[in-house]
């Protein structure tokens, strides 16, 4: 018997998704309560080893193309059915108790929070171009996002981030699992703060025109030729 098969059996009989830490606890507790050398041998299994085993296991299930697969959602491992069997499972166990789907504005705001967290409401509004108060309330009520701190700027505005419930709702392993994360997470090259404080229509134009006038006139030329010295009479 190897570690992989033990982990599979434990996960199969678990009533909830298990994190590597919980799996490790199962192994160490069994080792304590058992006299068998095999059980004893897993007493100090390392997390990295467990994760490697879990990955292999998931891979094996994927290659075997079974009707279920092993996935990691929000850091905990579980067996889930393949989506194509949903119609029959739905008949068996009934509709999943899941809150209603999120609206388009809620999804947009959530996407901004997920990729750019932690961030303030003002920052979200800057990207969306509209107020986010209504959708933020929905997202907070559903526990998908939460306050994660305060920005150390004037007014100390609240910073928001996503919760583990967010990962569970979308079936994500972790935030690094978000699609196209590299592209969306990077801080924009241009800092927009400077632009927000300046009213471009008024602030930039007049000084520019003054500057142009400074270059164009050639006051120096007439002054250059020194007046002919009066004839030495």
């Amino acid at each position: 018997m190897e570690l992989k098969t033990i982990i599979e059996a434990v996960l199969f009989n678990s009533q909830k998704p298990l994190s590597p830490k919980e799996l490790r606890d199962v192994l160490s507790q069994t080792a304590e309560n058992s006299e068998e050398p095999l059980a004893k041998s897993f007493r100090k299994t390392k997390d990295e080893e467990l994760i490697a085993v879990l990955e292999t296991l998931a891979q094996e299930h994927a290659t075997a193309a079974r009707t279920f697969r092993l996935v990691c959602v929000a850091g905990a491992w579980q067996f889930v059915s393949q989506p194509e069997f949903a119609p029959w499972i739905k008949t068996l166990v009934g509709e999943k108790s899941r809150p209603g789907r999120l609206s388009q504005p809620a999804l947009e705001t959530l996407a901004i929070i997920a990729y750019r967290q932690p961030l303030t409401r003002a920052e979200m509004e800057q990207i969306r171009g509209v107020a986010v108060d209504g959708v933020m309330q929905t997202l907070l009520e559903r526990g998908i996002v939460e306050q994660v701190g305060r920005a150390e700027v004037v007014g100390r505005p609240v910073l928001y981030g996503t919760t583990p419930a967010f990962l569970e709702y979308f079936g994500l392993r972790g935030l690094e699992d978000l699609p196209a994360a590299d592209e969306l997470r990077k801080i924009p090259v241009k800092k927009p703060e400077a632009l927000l404080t300046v009213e471009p229509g008024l602030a930039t134009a007049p000084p520019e025109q003054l500057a142009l006038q400074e270059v164009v006139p050639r006051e120096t030329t007439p002054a250059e030729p020194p007046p002919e010295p009066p004839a030495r009479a």
Partner: protein
Amino acid sequence: MSEFKVQFEMFEGPLDLLLYLVKKEEVDIYEVNLTKLATEFISYVDLMRQLDLDIAGEFLVMASTLMYIKSRELLPKDLQVVVEGEEDGEDPRWELIRQLVEYKKFKDAAGRLQEMEHAQENVYRRTAPKLSFDAPVQRMEVSIFDLVNAVNVILKRFAPTDSRDVFEDKWTVSEKIEAIVNLMRQRPAVKFSELFAEATSRTEVVVTFLAMLELIRLKQIVIAQTEEFSEIEISQAPPQPVAAPPTEAPAEAAAAPIAELNLRMN
């Protein structure tokens, strides 16, 4: 008119409307003719105003930004504003395009999240059944007739008095509700007869009974029989948002109809 309103609500904001207009032009965001876009955007805002829709302030801010961009474009290239050292930093066109591109990225990301949301609806988690060898407590439904019957048994303890005399209200339903709630806090399940063990009169029994009915209605308690014809048991209802207790009502007024009912049942 209302049909138009529905259409406008499709746009989440000015950026959304701009993206829609860019898409309609079938050009890359970076190559879009902002002057033309400005004209179209403002005609939309005008239309919204004609339709008497509430125009969000953001739309007006965007309209003014676009007007500014458009007015700049009217100047010949060499007369256009160029700020030294910040060639594209202050260019409102670039700023707008950058904002559009960024918004577009997140709109796409929201679309991907939506796909994942829908996909996740079809994913079912395997949960092993809970292993339990204790025989579950059987619970039988109790009907209103069972309850009336039970309270009648209790009432028989008291001789029917000729109640033409007027008593002061010694007991109120809300007091009794409190008493039952307190009792339930101490013990998970209470027998029906225990509720009335300390009752001293018919009125008190009726008031207590009404309090119990009220708690059932408020889903604070549930009643059940463990087997047929056994004594009714009262237990706490599964956790639920706490309902406000009913306003104080004099016992006699509320008790009257039930008392009548009992008389008829007798």
